């Protein structure tokens, strides 16, 4: 299960996003791409060249971006709305709530370069609040794929799901953690069980999944069994997998490249506090604007790395021993 985890190659999910969108568009004339001037940063240049009429660019106007997309959905098209995650979710938050979610429009909101991906560009360009904001909106599916294969699978699922969804498209390079690049079916509300262990469970999303697996591998050599779940579907959450973990292991660590005020950790804690109180460590970004630094630096700065996850697991083991 964990033997082949450390692959030398790492991937920016935007390549998978662009390739999958082309492949979907070739098969289905309803699919269009909508962006806010972000053709290059969304990796949509090839799409624009092959489907010039189906590449709708509303310019730097995010409110219009989401509203126009709801209108495209109204006439039976399936818009993949692509913009930098901080601007898509922050500037157009009310459009996402009203025009997409409340109106139940079939729009696929693709948040590019989420989390700390924009590193040195600073907190204006960081998208660490998006998961909290999106989770709070009814009728909106919220997905955080862990790598290229899962990104593609989530996009294929989104074409067939008639409602609105938000998909985080990672930019920070990650190793592939899915079993294969093709044919994987995405099932919302279903966690992927990536590593076995009976001591502690780590529930991870996005860029943190590969790091959670490395932490599990390191602790296995010390005889500590770590279960690793990839909870790519935050809304709906795999409640059963969370409860199983709380019954079968001694504690739960959640880890996300997002603020701890309202994302994955909060979702898991809400289930556990009411159903089966369980010791937890919630790893993420504290309620603070990040200092200057590139993504790798900032992830280390906030302890969102293998060492940080190992430390949290040890804390839970120690607490259990008391």
């Amino acid at each position, binding site marked *: 299960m964990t033997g082949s985890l450390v692959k030398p190659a790492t991937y920016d999910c935007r390549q998978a996003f662009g390739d999958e969108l082309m492949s979907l568009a070739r098969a289905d004339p309803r699919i269009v791409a909508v962006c806010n001037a972000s053709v290059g940063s969304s990796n949509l240049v090839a799409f624009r060249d092959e489907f010039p009429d189906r590449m709708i660019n509303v310019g730097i106007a995010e*409110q*219009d971006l989401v509203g*126009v997309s709801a209108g*495209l959905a109204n006439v039976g*098209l399936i818009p993949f709305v692509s913009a930098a995650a901080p601007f898509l979710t922050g500037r157009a938050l009310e459009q996402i709530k*009203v*025009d997409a979610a409340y*109106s*139940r429009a079939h729009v696929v909101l693709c948040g590019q370069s989420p989390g700390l991906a924009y590193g040195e560009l600073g907190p204006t360009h960081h998208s660490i609040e998006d998961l909290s904001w999106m989770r709070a909106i009814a009728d909106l599916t919220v997905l955080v794929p862990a790598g290229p294969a899962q990104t593609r699978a989530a996009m294929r699922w989104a074409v067939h799901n008639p409602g609105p969804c938000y998909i985080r498209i990672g930019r920070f390079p990650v190793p592939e953690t899915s079993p294969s690049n093709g044919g994987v079916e995405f099932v919302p509300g279903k966690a992927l069980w990536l590593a076995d262990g009976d001591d502690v469970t780590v529930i991870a999303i996005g860029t943190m999944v590969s790091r959670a697996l490395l932490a599990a591998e390191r602790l296995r050599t010390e005889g500590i069994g770590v279960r690793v779940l990839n909870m790519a579907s935050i809304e709906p959450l795999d409640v059963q997998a969370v409860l199983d973990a709380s019954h079968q292991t001694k504690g739960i660590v959640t880890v996300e490249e997002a603020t701890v005020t309202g994302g994955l950790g909060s979702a898991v804690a809400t289930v556990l506090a009411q159903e089966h109180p369980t010791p937890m460590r919630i790893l993420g970004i504290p309620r603070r604007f990040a200092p200057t630094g590139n993504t790798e630096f900032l992830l280390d700065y906030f302890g969102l790395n293998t060492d940080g996850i190992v430390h949290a697991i040890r804390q839970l083991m120690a607490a259990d021993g008391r």
Partner: protein
Amino acid sequence: MLAVDSSRAAAFIAARNGHAREAIDTIAAIRELARKVRLSDLTMIGNAKLGHIGGDLSVADILATLYAAVLTIDPREPLADDRDRLILSKGHCAGALYATLAHCGFFSVKELDTFAQPLSALNGHPNRVEVPGVETNTGPLGHGFPVAVGCALGARLRGITNRTFVVLGDGEMQEGSNWEAAMTASHYQLDTLTAVVDRNRLQQGARTEETKQLEPLQDKWVSFGWDVREIDGHDYEQLLAAFAPSTSGRPVCVIANTLKGKGVSFMEDRVEWHHKVPNPEQIEDAIRELSA
């Protein structure tokens, strides 16, 4: 989702076809629909003890003209692929929209009695998930126009030959998102799109020009690349002429000069009737005046 009123819908369609075939007096049909809408709306707001009576009465003639004589729609098939789309961006005037839809047969007129009551489909702002004929949910201002732009653009991409209308409040033109949409529509030369501004010159609390100046409004639209038609928004002949399709290749903006509270003399052009609720005597007086 509310059920269609089949007999009223059939009568509505027969009357619409009648205008075309037998030159039935179109203006009379619009006037009659507008009268019913105003009367129902007053009753709804009186019962619910909430609503936006002033703006409902200013937009009533615009909606009645569109539904009675312009839109290609069939209340029996509210989701037909090639229907014309009408979006009420000034969603707080849901009362006028509900009354119009009901009198066209999209759902039962009796349903209007439930307006704003617990668990009614007829919320204070329109919800497309529950109310047939509503294209997108509006309420916060500056939302309907971008959605209408998407409808017009999407219809062109799909090869659907229909028209899209969006009805905006004038105060709503203070929202930046509307000007984003205005730029997008002219950039894409969406000549099947008509934006109607209900120019009643009042918004909550004050005149638009005192709150944040809109004038020169026509110049603004022209500079954004629109074909602008400024008319009396209570004159049915002018409304009909203004709603004729674009011949310029550009989207059309109709600035409809209206009176807030139109039809009820003690409400007309008075700022307090933005969302003041008439008492039973005032409702009675208003109904008497509209029925005369």
